[in-house]
């Protein structure tokens, strides 16, 4: 009986950490889904998250209000994403180039501001977002604490699985978005403003990734560190591909990736040494397998990555 109890709480900790660490991956992946479904590749998600993490922290620090920080992270994501939108949609800049520019810019700017303003501060930081236990539901054995004892960004991510899915597959906006990502000229002949649809989706991806950024600085550790997103934006993109451009799939893929991290750290603790580089490779390896078509046909939107020029 005693043994079983330990076992159950182990599962809960494992599940809970898997879900919590999957939060930013999934949010970046949802951003990728919106963006790519409309036909714009967004490798800038990494840079957008990092900017969100920084601005969110800076605003929370200055205002002593974590919620203002979260809102600022989202706004910062939208703002940075608008650079990507302007460059790649209006000025027809190659989307990979534009995304790379933003990634480099984000590392540079957040690094500089961090060293200038934050590194030397002795004052107490804003702390972390509170964990909310949902009454009754959080008492369910095993699943309860995993799903219903979380902080804001994780709850938001869980709700957004459904919201993004519904938007993409059941609304007018979603239909138009998919049309623009598959065959923009056909969308235009149907009377749709392709550039407008793409703009809004890129901005939405910025909001989602910005919120993902808030996870790092305001939910996980309550502090900003340079480069703290550590490539999670790219893994989010891998999750989007692995999840076949659907929010549900991307969420499950994110869980798979973070679960493997948990396995690795537990294995290490138990004395079995798996080189961390191996598990770090896993998301990319799995993605290559998917993209190579080993798991059925890859279904990237047909026009993704191609700037659309009106005739």
């Amino acid at each position, binding site marked *: 009986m005693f043994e079983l109890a330990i076992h159950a709480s182990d599962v809960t900790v494992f599940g809970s950490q898997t879900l919590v660490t999957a939060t930013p991956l999934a949010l970046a992946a949802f951003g990728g889904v919106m963006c790519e479904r409309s036909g714009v590749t967004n490798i800038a998600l990494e840079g957008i998250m990092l900017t969100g993490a920084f601005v969110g922290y800076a605003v929370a620090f200055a205002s002593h209000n974590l919620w203002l920080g979260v809102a600022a992270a989202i706004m910062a994501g939208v703002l940075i994403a608008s650079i990507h939108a302007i460059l790649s949609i209006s000025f027809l800049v190659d989307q990979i180039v534009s995304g790379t520019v933003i990634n480099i810019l984000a590392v540079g700017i957040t690094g500089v501001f961090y060293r200038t303003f934050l590194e030397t501060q002795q004052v107490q930081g804003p702390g972390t977002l509170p964990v909310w236990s949902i009454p009754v539901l959080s008492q369910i054995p095993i699943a309860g604490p995993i799903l219903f004892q979380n902080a804001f960004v994780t709850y938001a991510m869980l709700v957004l699985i459904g919201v993004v899915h519904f938007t993409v597959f*059941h*609304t*007018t*906006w*979603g*239909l*138009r978005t*998919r*049309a623009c990502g*598959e*065959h923009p*000229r*056909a*969308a*235009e*002949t*149907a*009377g*749709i*403003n392709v550039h407008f649809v793409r703009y809004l989706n890129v901005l939405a991806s910025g909001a989602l990734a910005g919120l993902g950024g808030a996870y790092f600085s305001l939910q996980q550790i309550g502090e900003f560190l340079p480069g703290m997103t550590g490539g999670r934006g790219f893994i989010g993109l891998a999750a989007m591909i692995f999840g076949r451009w659907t929010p549900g799939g991307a969420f499950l893929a994110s869980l798979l990736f973070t679960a493997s991290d948990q396995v690795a750290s537990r294995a290490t603790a138990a004395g079995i040494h798996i080189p961390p580089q191996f598990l770090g490779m896993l998301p990319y390896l799995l993605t290559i397998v998917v993209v190579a078509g080993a798991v059925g*046909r890859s*279904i990237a939107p*047909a026009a993704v990555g191609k700037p659309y020029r009106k*005739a």
Partner: protein
Amino acid sequence: MTAALELRGIVKTFGELRANDGVDLAVEWGRVHALLGENGAGKSTLMNVVYGLTTPDSGEIVFDGRPVVIHGPQDAIRLGIGMVHQHFMLIPPLTVAENIILGQEITSPPGVIDLETAGRQVSELSQRYGLEVPPRARIESLSVGVQQRVEILKALYRGARLLILDEPTAVLTPQEIKGLFEIIRNLVAEGNAVIFITHKLGEVMEVADAITVMRRGKVVDHTTPQQSTPADLARMMVGRPVLLRVEKKPAHPGDVRLEVKGLVVHDDRKQVAVDGVDLDVRSGEIVGIAGVEGNGQNELVEAISGLRPAVSGQVLIGGRDVTRRSAKSRLHSGLSVIPPDRHRQGVILELPIADNLVLEDFDQPPFARWILRNLRAVFDYAAALIKQFDIRAAGPAEPTGSLSGGNQQKVVVARELGTNPEVLVAAQPTRGVDVGSIEFIHRQIVDQRDKGLAVLLVSSELDEVLSLSDRVAVVYRGRVVAILEGEEIDRDRIGLLMAGGAAA
């Protein structure tokens, strides 16, 4: 009675090119108005102006008696103008109903798509106009004929009263064309107007009430089918009398040069595209492949060229089995190929004509020694071919992309025939080419046949297959369903076979 559409002095230029050069056009309600012209005459450009896809440099548009400015397709749709494009504007992974309602979605509550109701409305609309479509099927699973019906429904759903059909018959079987004409007649009987774009004379004579002929961006004449003969129309289109038939002597076939045995080939989606084809082509004959596009012709051509692996079966050139050989080694064993899509496979537009003419042996003597190219030999050879094949260009160094479509195609033909091959596979050899160049290319192919070349001709233009071929193989769903010869080569019979009808 007010005209449905009146265009006055429409000008549209692309750089130096005047694609529309002061075009006037008047289309009446209740009429089928044919817009006839060669490839490149400016027909699609003019209709893109009407549909708001391009902005004209100058000119006026009057719709139903009112002057209008059309900024984009939304404006055109609002006025009641619908357009079915030459290349369909459908989104392959979406369903029929989704494609039809796109942009004017049926929602409940607002913003949320109501596919239930949408499907019902699509069914009602399709019954009303006799255009049967499956509302829940994905576009990518439908044949082109059905896709075209979806396009027409899409326009009608948006309340189109003026329907523009840009080369609607290019992808249809003769039977499907008859069906389309019936739909067109029903639409105009209800008082709508239809603009029917084509370069096929027979269709104009059959379906049009009024005809406008365009050439090089200008309207050259207005007429009616009663007032003109096909020969008149051809002359107006081209600007000089044209031979509507290719003159050729009876064939004298020799030994088998190209042999295909039990060939099975997959398409990109790993579906069987060529399903056990047996064919042989003899020296001195032209064997034509007739079939609706997408019945395995492209895969067959690629398998013979060595660009696509054979799943089973054999390809023999001059008696040698080349099934496992590379494309390059096949070219060197006497095969020449005119690929179906010249921009994707035929020429490199950025390169000079000379380089395109030696694309297949630029690394062989006399064009190269060891790792060095011999440009003098290349240019001399190119100059000779340019003369022989009447390629209208400033010189061998001119970039191929600056030539007209017809002259680009002549570059491909010159390269492929210039090596004196034993076997020529000519896929869509005159697609998107002006009438003058068509005549020239046909003449070259027939002349080479007379000198002993074995020709496999693949074309979606039935007229081309009928006028050039000594024998005709009809393909349907990847199989050769009949091989016809001499008197058996009959338009209606082939049309029936192309549509999957049993051999008569």
